[in-house]
């Protein structure tokens, strides 16, 4: 890692040599102090107000303000409420939650207890993607330590507050990162997104009021409590994009990896300063700013700031923080096909436009890449994309068309060239062999 220019918050502990993520190590760095400061001393509503004041927004992809989300829970409801930690990190290009769970599990657990206390959830579930077996084992081990020390479970530290945490493994389905699909999956069903409204805030897990928050979102909470909402709100691009983000840099850079920087640094700084620049001689051709669901951007966008509003204004989205870099020479049609194959594989099948459309899109894209495309294929692609986006129960429909729509917009000539090659080959084939020169 380069010399640390910015203060690390979430990755701070694990960047210390010898830090194992054990309870003893976490306590030594001031761990569980936020919990001691709050539980039984500060009313839950005040914790929610603090989080609202910090400006913290969801780190999973949608960027919804966390405190506002908590505020949607019915105030007068006396029954059971649930908190689910969305640890189903599956957005291609994103690998930060895995590191947060494997390297500093107690930071997440403390955040979950704080959130559970704030919203009045005594049972909380960490829905971790099934493939992350190591992460789930580490979390179980950390939970055993935390329960024994009285930080998790019944009557935490003698305050009379109950917040228990259970680790629940998914079983391989991208769609379960969508919050209502996650709830269905946690209920033992197929992970099909629910029609909204009603929203999870009123009808969530087992039809009870539920909050679903991402790992990175929850891991921020102990720091906001310890250092105050004003401190947090002063980092990044206030007022709308506060705090740091862990950006996951992958692809053709010298040092791929996770980089925690204040929101608002430019892509140029992230790619060339933090991640060491391009891996070889070839210059940058394209980058994806926020996971596979975010439209591609071009070198013209290098000075766009990494905050929610700026990336949206550039025609893409900050999404999950997965930044993928592609060098000159990478075929954009091929890259879009690779992502389209992902979406085709992961479409849950609930809505016809997405289920049928993804199959049609992938077939058309494969044909073009194999130089067997037809002149009308580009129109077919645009038509399909327009008829999928916005016509499905969840945001998957909008996500799956992003790679094709954005590459068609910026690199249309690459599609055209592949189709021309196919047409030229067909033309030659149509001439009788004897007549060819």
């Amino acid at each position, binding site marked *: 890692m380069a010399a640390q220019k910015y203060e690390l918050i979430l990755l701070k502990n694990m960047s210390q040599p010898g830090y*194992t993520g054990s309870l003893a190590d976490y306590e030594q760095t001031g761990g569980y102090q936020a919990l001691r400061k709050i539980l039984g001393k500060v009313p839950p509503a005040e914790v929610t107000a603090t989080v609202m004041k910090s400006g913290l927004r969801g780190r999973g992809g949608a960027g919804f303000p966390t405190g506002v989300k908590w505020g949607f829970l019915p105030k007068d409801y006396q029954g059971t409420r649930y908190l689910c930690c969305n640890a189903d990190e*599956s957005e291609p290009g994103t690998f930060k939650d895995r*590191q947060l769970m494997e390297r500093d599990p107690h930071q997440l657990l403390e955040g979950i207890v704080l959130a559970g206390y704030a919203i009045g959830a005594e049972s909380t579930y960490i829905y971790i993607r099934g493939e992350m077996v190591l992460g789930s084992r580490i979390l179980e081990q950390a939970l055993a330590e935390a329960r024994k020390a009285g930080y998790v479970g019944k009557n935490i530290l003698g305050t009379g507050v109950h917040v228990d945490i259970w680790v629940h493994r998914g079983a391989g389905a991208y769609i379960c990162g969508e919050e209502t699909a996650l709830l269905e999956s946690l209920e033992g069903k197929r992970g099909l997104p629910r029609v909204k409204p009603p929203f999870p805030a009123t009808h969530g897990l087992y039809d009870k009021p539920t909050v679903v928050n991402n790992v990175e979102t929850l891991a921020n909470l102990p720091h906001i409590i310890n250092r105050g909402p004003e401190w947090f709100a002063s980092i990044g691009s206030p007022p709308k994009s506060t705090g740091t983000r862990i950006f996951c840099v992958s692809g053709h850079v010298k040092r791929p990896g996770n980089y925690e920087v204040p929101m608002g640094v430019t892509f140029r700084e992230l790619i060339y300063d933090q991640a060491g620049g391009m891996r070889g001689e070839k210059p940058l051709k394209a980058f994806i700013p926020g996971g596979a669901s975010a439209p591609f951007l071009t070198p013209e966008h290098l000075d766009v700031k990494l905050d929610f509003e700026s990336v949206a204004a550039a025609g893409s989205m900050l999404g999950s923080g997965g930044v993928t870099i592609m060098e000159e020479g990478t075929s954009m049609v091929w890259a879009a096909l690779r992502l389209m194959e992902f979406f085709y594989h992961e479409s849950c099948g609930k809505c016809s436009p997405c289920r049928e459309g993804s199959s049609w899109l992938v077939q058309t894209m494969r044909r073009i890449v194999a130089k067997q495309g037809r002149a009308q294929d580009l129109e077919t692609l645009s038509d399909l994309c327009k008829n999928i986006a916005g016509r499905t129960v969840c945001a998957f429909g909008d996500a799956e068309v992003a790679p094709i729509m954005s590459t068609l917009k910026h690199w249309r000539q690459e599609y055209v060239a592949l189709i021309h090659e196919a047409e030229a080959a067909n033309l030659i084939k149509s001439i009788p062999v004897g007549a060819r020169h």
Partner: protein
Amino acid sequence: MNLAEKYKDEIADILSRYPVRRSALIPLLYLAQQENGFITEGAMIEIAGMLKLTPPQVYETATFYTMLNLKKVGKFHIQICKSLMCALVGSDTVIGWMKTKLGIGPGETTADGLFTLTAVECLAACGTGPMMQINDDYYERLTEEKVDRILADLRTTGTSSMKSGPFMWPDRAGARV
């Protein structure tokens, strides 16, 4: 095989975690899969009985998730990530090596039943690609030499020290991916 007898304590622990029984379905299917590497029809019927579900309800869930195997797989299930992020840094080459070394293509199992090869979508290790998962373990930043060592290790000892982690356990404290 009777899961209820063999895994009495595990099943009790799983059921105690959820206020609604059906939530225990995926954890119980994992338990069943532990037996033979795949989930048998008998196991699904038994689990349906435990959770007061119908067998089709169990089957409906089991068929949705890629990690639940309803068919036999090799002793070592090699899953190579083929999504764009890994493809940019050479996952197609890794799949090529594996094809040559094992003599099978994606979706196939070696004749001795040792290895099944699958090309899969993103496994959330894009910064350390190309990568693969073998059974529970991740193997990252793959090179041909590393792949050779991993396969040799698996053949001789059933596991390989080339895997990622563990991080919290004292013996490998502070190790970095």
